[in-house]
């Protein structure tokens, strides 16, 4: 199966590969896996006090489409507010990368990773508020 040019571009030159401090309160971490193929993806966001995603990093062990999907996701996340980030859908990623039907699950994995990172961030913020309130 041939990869689209955009997939190859992200695969050969992935953006934002790396790690943020998972224990920091302003960092949300999403770790997801694809049980059908054994790929794993970690996506992290660092959020400013104003609720803007100022940095995003990922690490993906998987096929070219999974790497490209997470690379594109981190590019889109940077500079967005958290509520805007929540509107990113796998179909947008699949369309941008011209993913064929058999690789749609890679974009689903990226959307799940974004949601899971945001959920982790929100949970940390809620825990922090509870501590300050108490």
């Amino acid at each position, binding site marked *: 199966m041939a990869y689209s040019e955009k997939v190859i571009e992200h695969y050969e030159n992935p953006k934002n590969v790396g790690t943020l401090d998972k224990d920091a309160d302003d960092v949300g971490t999403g*770790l997801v*896996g694809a*049980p*059908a*193929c*054994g790929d*794993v993806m970690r996506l992290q966001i660092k959020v400013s006090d104003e609720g803007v995603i100022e940095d995003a990093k990922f690490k993906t*062990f998987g096929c070219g489409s999974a790497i490209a999907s997470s690379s594109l996701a981190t590019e889109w996340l940077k500079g967005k507010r958290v509520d805007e980030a929540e509107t990113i859908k796998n179909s947008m990623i699949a369309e941008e990368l011209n993913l064929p039907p058999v690789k749609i699950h890679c974009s689903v994995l990226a959307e799940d990773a974004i949601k899971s990172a945001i959920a982790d961030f929100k949970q940390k913020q809620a825990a922090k508020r509870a501590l300050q309130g108490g």
Partner: protein
Amino acid sequence: MTLGLTPTYGLDLSALDARYHELSKVVHPDRQAGRSPAERRRALSLAVDVNAAYRALRDPVRRAEAMLARGGRASDRAAPSPAFLMDVMELREGLAAARAASDLGRVRGMADEVRARRDRVIAGLAAAFGAGRDDDAVPLVAELRYLARFLDEVRAIEEEADA
């Protein structure tokens, strides 16, 4: 069952190999001299089926998928626990670091640990299928796929080192 074996997960692999070699000989194209074209075509199609069945049964992931499919269950839905995923991520990062450092000893050490872990999952699958607890097998198949992917990566690193 193409190979005429009882469907069971805890398959005796040497019995599987023996049965495969026996059947392969019978249906081998070289043994079809003097047969009619229709008989030869039938032997060829049987040989293809025997090869496919053998490959599927020899592979622990595909064997489990076949067992689940017999019970009408999909095997690609269950997600393993977050703790398991975290382990896999750490293993994959460790392997990538060992590869980057060209530390083949470290790669092989990690591979031995993962193989032992894989064998424990396979034993768990045999127990689950043996007791008719197919639902318990579903998350184990997912775990097996993650560990198999790790070992695929190890093979790629070893091939790269041999080249």
